[in-house]
């Protein structure tokens, strides 16, 4: 007998099935008494039935506050089926060539995984250097990541609903407490760091904003400044990079725009603001700002339009030496490389895309100028890929990091908070 079937019979299902049977027997006895006495209330009929004609209140009866000692049916029932992924799935990626480290956020198992920069899997699972996970870590639906080579710290942003940034030392392992935690706005995603400013910048999807803190801010610390407002061009911002060499910040926008931004509420903690917003879905974009920008400032320039090929742009990587900006283009399984100074409906100067590349719903991208490499984290393939920095077209990666055996499918879940049943196709719909 299959394991789950035996567990089903010997535990949850058996218990759950017997209780209503016993209950029905009691009720049927009562029903006969009531029938003999002249009838039953309409709501007190039995049998599940399939006609749909019975009273909708037949089964449970109605309870009032004083009736609180009833044992509910059901209980600790084993699931008949489950779709889960036991392997880490990468979200953001950061590379530190100085300390020979690459680190990824794992949204599936809620961990942060780091590897030797030169690690390669072949056809096996790549042994990580470290993996930090567990209840002490405060790692949740973790997204953007930054590897601070100078302070040997990993900074990672929890997206929803932890509302924190966690900072881990490079040598953190297992169920380790963060070196520090910072409270940040709800639905933060990307993170960037500036050495010249000694600041970090964090994107906030819901608030269409970039918020800035001191690099070592912790606990409950107000932001130093923010970029926010209808003139900024920020629209569901995700990836962010801070180009210290040119004192510029670049932000990847999905294009979802909350209209007039009148609502200053906190999203999931509503404020009661009732102003209509009149949102819009704008074309995806990359917007550039001065590293000192604040408030409702217009971007210095934007990349936006059909020629740009932008489609769910996620993580960004900047190469100040070669004046290039790389984009993890999640929507069409590609990496786009633009001139750093591109503007308007500009085409990328290079594109890595195709079946040989192994790029599959990329979430993060990082450029290692020291070793002339470009890193990509995949969301739908348990892999991170390493390309030559100047690769283009349908090329195979030079190295692969794997968290699962090759070909292992993944459901692609990322904090699934809703589900629907398509009765026409007998399919279950799970948005992320």
């Amino acid at each position, binding site marked *: 007998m299959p394991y789950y079937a035996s567990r089903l019979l010997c*535990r949850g299902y058996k218990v759950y*099935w017997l209780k209503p049977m016993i209950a029905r027997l009691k009720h049927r006895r009562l029903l006969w008494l009531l029938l003999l006495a002249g009838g039953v209330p309409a709501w007190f009929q039995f049998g*599940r039935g399939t006609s749909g004609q019975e009273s*909708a*209140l037949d*089964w*449970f009866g109605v309870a009032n506050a004083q009736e609180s000692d009833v044992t*509910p049916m*059901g209980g600790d*029932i084993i699931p008949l089926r489950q*779709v*889960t992924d036991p392997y880490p799935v990468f979200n953001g990626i950061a590379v530190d060539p100085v300390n020979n480290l690459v680190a990824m956020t794992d*949204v599936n198992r*809620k961990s942060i995984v780091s590897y030797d920069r030169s690690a390669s899997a072949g056809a096996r699972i790549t042994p990580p250097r470290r993996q930090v996970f567990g*209840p002490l870590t405060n790692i949740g639906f973790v997204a953007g990541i930054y590897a601070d080579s100078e302070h040997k710290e990993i900074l990672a942003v929890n997206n*929803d609903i*932890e*509302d*924190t940034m966690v900072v881990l030392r490079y040598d953190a392992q297992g169920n380790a407490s963060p070196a520090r*935690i910072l*409270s940040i706005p709800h639905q933060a995603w990307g993170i960037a760091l500036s050495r010249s400013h000694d600041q970090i910048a964090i994107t906030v*999807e*819901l608030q269409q*904003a970039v918020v800035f803190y001191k690099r070592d801010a912790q*606990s*409950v610390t107000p*932001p130093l400044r*923010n970029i926010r407002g209808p003139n900024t061009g920020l629209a569901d911002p995700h990836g962010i990079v801070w180009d210290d060499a040119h004192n510029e910040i670049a932000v990847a926008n*999905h294009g979802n725009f*909350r209209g007039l931004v009148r*609502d200053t*509420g*906190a*999203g*999931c903690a*509503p*404020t009661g*603001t009732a102003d209509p*917003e009149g*949102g819009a*879905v704008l074309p995806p974009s990359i917007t550039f700002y001065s590293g000192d920008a604040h408030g409702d400032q217009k971007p210095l320039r934007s990349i936006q339009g059909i020629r740009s090929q932008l489609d*769910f742009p996620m993580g960004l990587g900047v190469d100040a030496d070669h004046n290039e900006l790389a984009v993890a283009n999640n*929507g*069409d399984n590609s990496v786009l490389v633009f001139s750093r100074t591109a503007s308007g409906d500009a085409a990328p100067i290079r594109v890595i895309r195709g079946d040989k590349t192994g790029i599959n719903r990329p979430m993060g991208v990082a450029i290692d100028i020291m070793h002339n490499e470009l890193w990509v984290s995949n969301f739908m393939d348990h892999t991170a890929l390493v390309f030559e920095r100047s690769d283009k077209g349908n090329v195979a990666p030079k190295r692969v990091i794997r968290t699962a055996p090759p070909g292992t499918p993944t*459901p*692609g*879940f*990322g904090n*699934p*908070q*809703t*589900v*629907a*049943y*398509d*009765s026409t*196709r*007998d399919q*279950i*719909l799970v948005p992320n």
Partner: protein
Amino acid sequence: MANGTAAPERVISGAATKLSRTVHGIAYDAEHDEIYAPNPLADAVLVFRGAANGNEPPIRVIQGPNTRLVVPHAVSFDPEHRELLVASLSNRTIAVFPWNASGNVSPVRYISGPKTRLGHVVGLGVDSASNLLAVANSEEILMFNRTDNGDVEPVAQIKGPHTGIGDEPWELQVYKSRIFLATSNHLHTNLYSGVTLKDGYTKPPEDPWLNPELGFIGVWNIRDRGDVPPHAIIKGPFSQILHPTGLALNPKDGEIYVTDSIRNGLFTFLVPDFF
């Protein structure tokens, strides 16, 4: 049906879909074979054909200031009255549209205001037999008359320690006057109003998923009142669910589908007697 480490059979994704990567509600309309999905970050509800796949645009979009949608999180389809109900989180409202509404349209009904007690609204559903609307509110289930409009008080509530409903109950479904609720029981503390810190906090929020009071799937009768426990429940370590948020029903096969953010997974329970 999918089981184990399975890849999706189809994926609706891409810029043309107008979807965001934040979708906290979804509904399927079997009569018209359509999928409703909100885009809270663009104040919109998107409607897809049931067989949509890939980077496919929606067939209708409800969006614009007349819709009065502000961060819409939940949708529910009422097949009997052919209406779409949309809960907006940030302005604490419920808007009702005809099933085929499109564009910058006004809702036919709009529940909003201090009397409503609407707060953190995510789940909602209509019971045709009782003509009631059940709403998963901040820490309780509120009931309204289905045709309520404006600043109206709820007609009833299910609330209190015996219910087991804690912070931010999530998706809710109604079937034959039974309320099925994903009682998440996570503890979400948001220290910010927009991008501004609120006063009075000195510590960062605790991990919202470490609430020792586990979540569960609870089933109530829509005419239950007050502090009453669920009549049926799925809860405990063997169930594998910790803080469930998503919930869908398949009465024909006696199955309940549950998503859990901590487990990052989809769980199917065979519970024919719950229906």
